[in-house]
Every structure is written in C-alpha cells, then in structure tokens.
C-alpha cells in the first residue's frame, strides 16, 4: 500500500472512530443514579429524599439551565427488586396547577395516600396531614410513575403565607422484580415555555427521570 493509500485509510478510520466516540458519548450521558437500601431483606426499603425548587441554579449553580425548575439532587434512581420506596420530597415551589385535574388524586402509593408536613418530618414534633387528593389548582408538581400506577401531586407552597417555605410530602410505593420505569411531573411547570410544557418538562434531569429496578 502506498503512502497516499495509508493516509486515506488512516483518515477514514480516524473520522469513523471520532464519529463513533462522539455518538456513544452523546447517547450515553445519563448521570449516576441515587438510592441505597436501608435494609437488605427479601423486601428491602429504600429511602429517597428529593427537593424541588423553582430554579435549580439555587442548589446546582453550575447547571446548564440554572433558571429551570427541577428535582434535586437527581432524577435517576436505582432500587433493588421488590423494594418499597419510601419517598420524602421537600417541595419548595409555588403552585402552577394541573392540566388534567384527575392527577390531583393520590394513586398507587401504600394506602393510596400521602402525608404532607410543613416542617422537616424527621425533626421532633412534626405533625403531618394525610391526604388522598389535593385541589388540582394548588399542585406545584407531581411525582408520577405511569407504568406503576403511582401518581402523587405535590401541593405548592402558599404564596400568602411567608412561613410556608416548604411542603414535605412523604409516601411509599412498591416496585416489581425488574424493569426500567419512567417517572415525570404532570404539572405544566416549565415557566416561560408554551403552556408550561417545554424546557424542564421535556428534559431528563429536571422534571423527568427513571427508576431502574435491579440489584
């Protein structure tokens, strides 16, 4: 093979490898999942603590979209098979209302209910209110896993009550033996986008995530 031939082959190989590496890198860009079992029995219990904020930049200053609404620290969870996920969501955002009012119903959780606290539920003396539905116009977000039938509306903080800075929403749900399930928010909360449905509503890591069941 002559010099020109070798160079040609090299150039094509380099272009191919570059394109391949770029593509693989682009496609495989999901962040590391969170979630660790607190008890390793046959039906383990996993605690997941999340925070929702109106602008993710207040918690993650280096974010690509600091003014987007989002769940913190991550929207990727990995949980063991048949686990019971015990979720505590520190909801700090204001209400923007559900598009489909039916999703104001708490579904698919243990007892089809959730408990809402206005102060940290782990602190002494915190008392919560058990709810089976909320007024859809007061919803700030939902935590919904359609494939598992789970949907929990998160009440927004009261704009007329400066003391109400956080709503802690506590609920549990069970996952099956295997699978990858998407979860999302159903409140059109992407402020500034068309009917609130764009931006963070359409992008992984803000109002969309995945629950991967596996050991």
């Amino acid at each position, binding site marked *: *093979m*002559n010099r*020109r*031939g070798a160079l*040609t*082959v090299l150039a*094509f190989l380099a272009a191919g490898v570059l*394109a*391949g590496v770029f*593509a*693989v890198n*682009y*496609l*495989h*860009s*999901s962040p590391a999942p969170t979630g660790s079992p607190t008890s390793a029995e046959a039906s383990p219990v996993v605690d997941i603590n999340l925070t929702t904020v109106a602008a993710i930049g207040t918690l993650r200053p280096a974010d*690509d*979209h*600091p*003014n*987007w609404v989002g769940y913190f620290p991550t929207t990727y969870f990995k949980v063991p098979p048949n686990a019971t996920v015990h979720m505590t969501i520190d909801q700090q955002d204001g209400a923007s209302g559900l598009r489909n009012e039916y999703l104001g119903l708490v579904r698919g959780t243990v007892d089809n209910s959730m408990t809402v606290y206005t102060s940290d539920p782990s602190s002494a003396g915190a008392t919560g209110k058990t709810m089976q539905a909320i007024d859809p116009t007061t919803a700030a977000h939902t935590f919904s896993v359609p494939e598992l039938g789970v949907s929990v509306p998160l009440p927004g903080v009261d704009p007329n009550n400066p003391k109400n800075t956080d709503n802690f929403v506590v609920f549990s749900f069970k996952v099956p033996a295997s*699978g*990858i399930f*998407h979860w999302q928010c159903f409140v059109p909360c*992407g*402020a*500034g*986008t*068309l*009917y609130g*449905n*764009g*931006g963070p*509503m*359409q*992008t*992984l890591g803000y109002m*969309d995530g*995945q629950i991967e069941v596996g050991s």
Partner: protein
Amino acid sequence: MTSMAVTRPPRRLSETLAQWGLVLGVVGAVAGFFVGAFIGRLLVAADANSNGSNAELIIAYAGSAIGFLAGMGFFNYPLARLIGLPRPTEADEAFLYGEEGGWRRFFRLNVDHKVIGMQYVVVIIAFLFIGGLGAMFIRAELLQPQPSFASAESYLTLVGLHSVIMIFMASAAIIGPFGNYFVPIMIGARGMAFPRLEALTFWLLPPAALILLSSTFVGGFPTGWTGYAPLADEAVRGMDAYLVAFTLIGLSICLSGLNMVATVIARRAPGLRMTQLPVFVWGVFVTSWLGLLAAPVLACVLFMEILDRIGRATFFVPAGGGTPYLWENLFWVFGHPEVYIFIVPAFGLIMEMIPVFARKPLWGYRVAVGGMIGVGILSWFVWQHHLFVSGIAPSLRPFYMFSTEAISVPTSVVYLVAIGTLWRSRARFTVPMLFVMGFLFNFLIGGFSGVFLSDVPSDFALHSSYFVQAHFHYTIMGAEVFALIGAITFWLPRMTGHVLNERLGRIQFWWMFITFNGTFLSLLAVGMLGMTRRVVSYDPNWQGLNISASLFAFGLGASMLFFLVILIKDTLIAPVRARVVNVWESLGHEWQLPQPIPVHNFAILPTGWGLPYDYDRDERRTAVPGGGMALPEGVIE
C-alpha cells in the same frame, strides 16, 4: 473556452482568496454566528431556555450560513454587478471553472457542473454514512425492549438526526451527483443554465448538515423529520437547528429544480427535441418540477414554525387560534412530492441502465416518460393519506385513497418498461445490472406494502407503525440507495476513469440485498403486530423480531462499509484505471466524449442527436459470435 491550455498569469488576490474559500467560509460562519447572535439578542430578550433565546440561535444559525457562503465567495459576483465593477475577464472565468485542473478545484467554489457532480458524490456518501451510523445505534438500542445505553431523550434526537440527514441525502442522492454531472452532457450543453446557482445548491448542503448535527449541543430535537407542531413549539433549542438546516435544504432543492428545469428547456443541443432526451434526463426534469414547486411550501411552513418559536405566532397552537392540522397539511403538501423527488430520478436512472446491459433499445420510451410525468402530477394529490387517522373530514378520504392507489398505475410502467426491455435481450448481469434487479425487487415490495397503507381501514392498523417505516425504507433504501450504488458503479469509469472490482461488487450486492431484506421484512412483520415507530421502549413480546432486524441491520451496515472499502480501494489506495473509457460499451452520449471530459464539454455543440438506445444497430454486438458483447478484459468477467 475550449480545452486549449491557458497560459496562467501570476495568481491574483481574488484567486488566492477563492483557493482559501473553504477556510474563509469557516471563518465567515463563525463570525456570522456571533453577529447573528448579537442581532438576535438585540431583538428578543433571553427566554426560558436560560442560555439564549430561540431568536438568538435561529438568527445566529442563519448568520453562520450566510457567513459561510460569503467566505466561499458566493456574493462577490452579484455584489460586483450591483456596484458596477467590470465584468469578469476570461481568466477569471477560466479560474471559476477550474480550468487549471488539480485536486484543489474540488475544494472551492467551482461552477463546472462536473466538479459539482463530484462534490455531490462525496457529500452524499458522507451523509449516507453519517445517517447510517445513526441507524446502527438505533438498531443496537432496540435490541432491548427498554432503554439501555441511550436515554429516551438522546434516542429521540438520534432518530431525528438519522431521519433528517437521510432525507437530506435522499433529496439529492441521484439528482445531485448524476443530474448535475450528466444532464448537461446528455442534452449536448456546455453547462447548466445558471452555473453559479448550481454551485450554491451544493454548498448549501455542508452548512445545513453541520447546523443540523450541532443540534446535539443545544438539547437535540424530539420531533423526528416530520417536525409536528405543537410539539415543535414546545421543544428546546435543538429544534431551531432542525428548522434552519431544513430551510437551507429546501432552498437547495428549490434552486436545483429551477436550474435543471431551465437547463433542460433552454440549453438543449440545436435540434434536440424533448422527445429525444434520454430517459434519465426526463426523470431529472420531472423531479426538478417537483422540487421547484414543493420546496417553497416547506420553506414557508418552516418559517411559520420559526415565527411560532420566536414570536409566539401560534400558527399551530389551537388555544392561540392556530391548528396542528395546518402544519400537517402544509408539511405533507411538500412531503409527498418530496418522496417522489427521491424516487423518480431513480426510475430514470434504472431505465437508462437497463438498455446498456440488456443490449436492446429501451422498450416503450414514450410510456416510460409518460409514466414519470404521471407520477409527478399525481404526487400532488395524495398527501392526505398521511392524515387518514388524524381526524380530517372523512368525506375527503375516498379521494385520497383513490389517488394513492391510482399512482401505482404510472409507477408500474417502470416494470413494464423493464420487462419489455429485458424481453429476449442478451442481458449481462454486471454489478450495476444486479443493483437494477435489486431495485426492481425491493421497490415491488415497497409498492405493494403501500397498497395496504392506501386503504383507509387497513391504514387504521398500520399507520405510524413499523410497517410504514419498513415501507418507506423499501422505497428509499431498497430502491433509491440501490440505484445510487448501481449508478456509482456504472458511471464511475466515466467520472474518474476508475473501475470498481467486479467480483467484490457482486459479493457486496448479494450481501447488501439479503441483509436489507432480512432487516425490513422483520420490521414489516413487527409493524403488523403493532409496534409504533420512534419508540425506545416496546412490548417485550416483539423482542425476537427486533433482534432479527438488528442483526440483519448490522450486516447491512457492514455491507455498506464494504462498499466504501471497495470504492476507496479502487479509486484512492490501489486505483484501477479503466482501459477504455466506455467500459460498458454504452451508446449513451456521455460515454462518447474524451477522457477526461473537457471543462466545457463540447468545442462544437453536437447536432443530429437522437435517442441513445440503438443497440439493435450496434455493430459490435453482431460482430461477436453468439450475440454477446465484447468487453475489455478484466472489467467484466
């Protein structure tokens, strides 16, 4: 103006700038991007996208395209005319046509239609392989019924990039390389009607592709190639890349159509009547009308979407007074003629190749031309078959059902002509002919699968399923790309003087043919079962068929790489030169010119040309015992 050597004066500034046009173009693109972004920021404040508004990005992209073209030197001539500078000298013109020769003339603004044809060949192959890489990742991801290595978000962008880049490729795959290269020669012209415009149609492709691919840096786009609104209104800024890139391609399709139509009408050799044009020229001519008339609709609907995104014009948002049906209708008014922009030149191409290898005159020239014109006209009246389940007025549907079924009549003429020409022929199954046969078989499946989609109730079960996906891959990949590879093999000896290895070509054909059918028969089946297109998760019951499709698809990808290896080996690494120019002993006009073809093709315009299919009067054929044709040794087995 002829092939007479030009004594070159020392290089002038304008020539040096042109030589470095590509570099200047990149500089211009970067500068244009920032100027555009600046203007965009002045016009519209940053919105919810937090790192810039849609207006900013769209104007920046448009600025980069304009900057690129300016750097390439596209505006020099019109601006010079505008401010009254002297007309270009003969030396300027000679340089513009690349009369100095050498490889560098392929990498700058050059208005020689043959150089542009070669540039198209390379870029079309590049698009084919970039899109093909996307296809491989899609099939790899679909080995699993759940997201594995790609996320749901990047998968949608992957599907979108694969489809749009392949649409870019398919829109120009045959008309770009071979239309530009051979139509002027086949009609006995010295060039196209508007040579500078011709160069522009080509140089719009690279910025369009780069802008499209840059979508991955700004969030990708979720809509696939159809860009349905209002999803496109909601999408992140990657959507802007789709809109600008597709607009550039629309401009290219439209201008290319305009140029071809003008060329065929106005620049035919003296005395050459329309009824004496080679059938390939007719294919290109019909296609060019479609492009000229359909692409403006695309540009218009994309501009409406741009207004929706930057100014909330709500053309497509129901609560704002618009309607998604507006997008669906306008898009498919373009979109359905568009698929005939893909396939009609391929019709012309295979009907051009069959007589050469059958050693028989083309059977039914008038029927062939009439068939293509019929397809071209009917293609305007079928678009609502894309909307059978959308909720359009049901009373409209019988008409579109009928027109869609009716288009199979002019289409079937291709088979009539092929069978008629092959009938009692002395056909030689060289590699291009194998690809013609592959085309006929694949397009038959493509066409018959279309029948099930044309009838309203059966479309309820198949619309938007993998059946549709397999159907249009049969027509685009199975027919158009097969025709493209056949045409590269067929015309390469004429274009560069190289001959591709016959034995490897045969292996490559069968490899590609079998894996192609394996892939898309699996997908036809999984579509009938109910799998929707563009999904990253699917019913695990369908995993078997998906694995089958994926494995065949990897084989298909490998066969395409094998073609690239043959092409590079025989042209660049170990070049195989044709011993004679006319390796296939074609009677086509394009084969009768010297090698290399002079810059302006003909010193004296030809006269007395007729249809180039008189193989029954070919003396060489009758001179060989048994009626076969004698071909140069080592070229045909």
